[in-house]
């Protein structure tokens, strides 16, 4: 699979990270290297093996249906780069 600068920029957009042309070119090379390195890994025989999603075989712990959090709007927005009252404010979303 040949990775182009365009494909890298697309992937970067999906993850909302701006990459310069230069950076995109570096990532292309990086990608090619990584994918080559991963070839034996991809083709390793794992037929019939169950994926291991987590080490922890625990039962889902639950909270009771009680309101114990919230009521701290000022705190919630206290670190916001832009806020108005207790709203977060961002540049307008273009629908």
């Amino acid at each position, binding site marked *: 699979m040949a990775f182009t600068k365009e494909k890298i920029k697309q992937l970067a957009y999906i993850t909302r990270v701006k990459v310069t042309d230069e950076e995109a070119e570096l990532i292309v090379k990086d990608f090619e290297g990584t994918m080559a390195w*991963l070839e034996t890994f991809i083709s390793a025989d794992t037929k019939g093996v169950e994926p291991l999603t987590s*080490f922890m075989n625990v039962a889902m712990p639950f909270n009771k249906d009680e309101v114990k959090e919230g009521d701290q709007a000022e705190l919630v927005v206290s670190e916001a780069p832009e806020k108005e009252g207790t709203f977060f404010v961002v540049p*307008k979303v273009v629908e």
Partner: protein
Amino acid sequence: MTELHELSLKETVDGLQSKKFSSVEVTDAYIKQIENNRDLNAYVLETFDQARESAKAADKNIAAGNARPLEGVPLGIKDLYCTKGVRTTACSNILRNFVPPYESTITQNLWNAGALMLGKLNMDEFAMGGTNTTSCFGPVKNPWDKTRIPGGSSGGSAAATAMDMACATLGSETGDSIRTPASMCGVVGMKPSYGRCSRYGMISYSSSLDQGGPITKTVADAAIMLKYMAGYDHKDSVCADLPVPDYEASLKKDVKGMRVGYIREFNELGGVHEDVYKGYRDCLNAFKAEGADVVEVSIPHVIFAGQIYAVLANCEAASNLARYDGVRYGLRVDGDGSLDDMYLETRGKGFGWQIKRRLVIGSYMLSAEQYDTYFKQAQRIRRLLFNEFAEAYNQVDVIMAPITPDAPCTIEQVLNGADVVSRQGCLIDLLTMPMAMAGVPGIAVPAGSVDGMPFGIQLCAKRFDEETVFHAGYALEQMLKGDK
């Protein structure tokens, strides 16, 4: 005469509790040591005023007979842990000015035990890296040779511990981020089983692998630290609901009958310095001499561990780092006036190069068409590796292995992308990642030196058998002391 800042944590606790010296004195000693070694760049935030206040309060408690187990002990905390009211950045520009209004469970456990904080320690950005050269605050220097890396991602923690800039430090590991820097800086680093400690308040990198652990001057210190760090936390849904044993009780020298394994696939690896191999063999022989059974085990899938990590960690990171978007906290850089552009600019400028490449790779491998090829394949191979370790632990109690193959690279070599860096990196991956991918606990114990630089040996046991880890680690430490 041992200086106060040269004492181990255990000695410090004993000295404080028996009122041989005060917490204020100890804290001041560490503060001075930090001030004298700022060029190592181990600390990214010094909280000296707070530390002195806490030390005064600790001395009051001790005087009143209310001393808690770690009362007045000064610690350094990796800047990955959210500390309430104290800036926490994960050493990334995107969190450069973030002050969390909450405390992580592990650090809260330590404060509840009476410890106090000297400051936040340097690390690779978002814990992604093995060299501590990707921090937005600049690289950390290895105290043994300031041109060399201390290892990462807990480089600040290891350097601070090695240079007596804290009584003990808190690090974390996802792939090898405790064991590698501990090895490169000649200190003890312990990584508990995945799920032993709570991850609440730890900035997430790879949720299914991240785990907090202590980096200390001695094995006993690590056992003490873990005793207070570990435990069930309802706020972490995948945390183990298991009682925390008194790990200090595991610190025994006697290893008669202990079954010690060494991994066949690690024999004769090109690139491992003969001094390291000799040190490794010496350790195995020391155990044999003390009555342990030394047995070869085979874990064929170790060769894939680095790749499993590369896939899983990057995929999970891509998702975990999506929240850093300039909306609710952290850096915001406006673009052309649209929300999308604000995201792009903020994350483009806020994240370092390593992060960006991992986000792109991670997004690729999680995409619908690639999901099975990479992500699920990684989970399948991880299952095989996990099973192989479990099988090995039927034959042995503990597995011993090297950690770093040679003297650490120089910072310049890393920044220039020299070949030696990736060669060494591959070897380190091979030697360390398998244990992390299997979720087993392990400890790095300083074992010798190569080219004047320290290297450690690791001892890993099966999941939730931290007791054997401390037992074997302590025994090894004592054996090596005996030699000197």
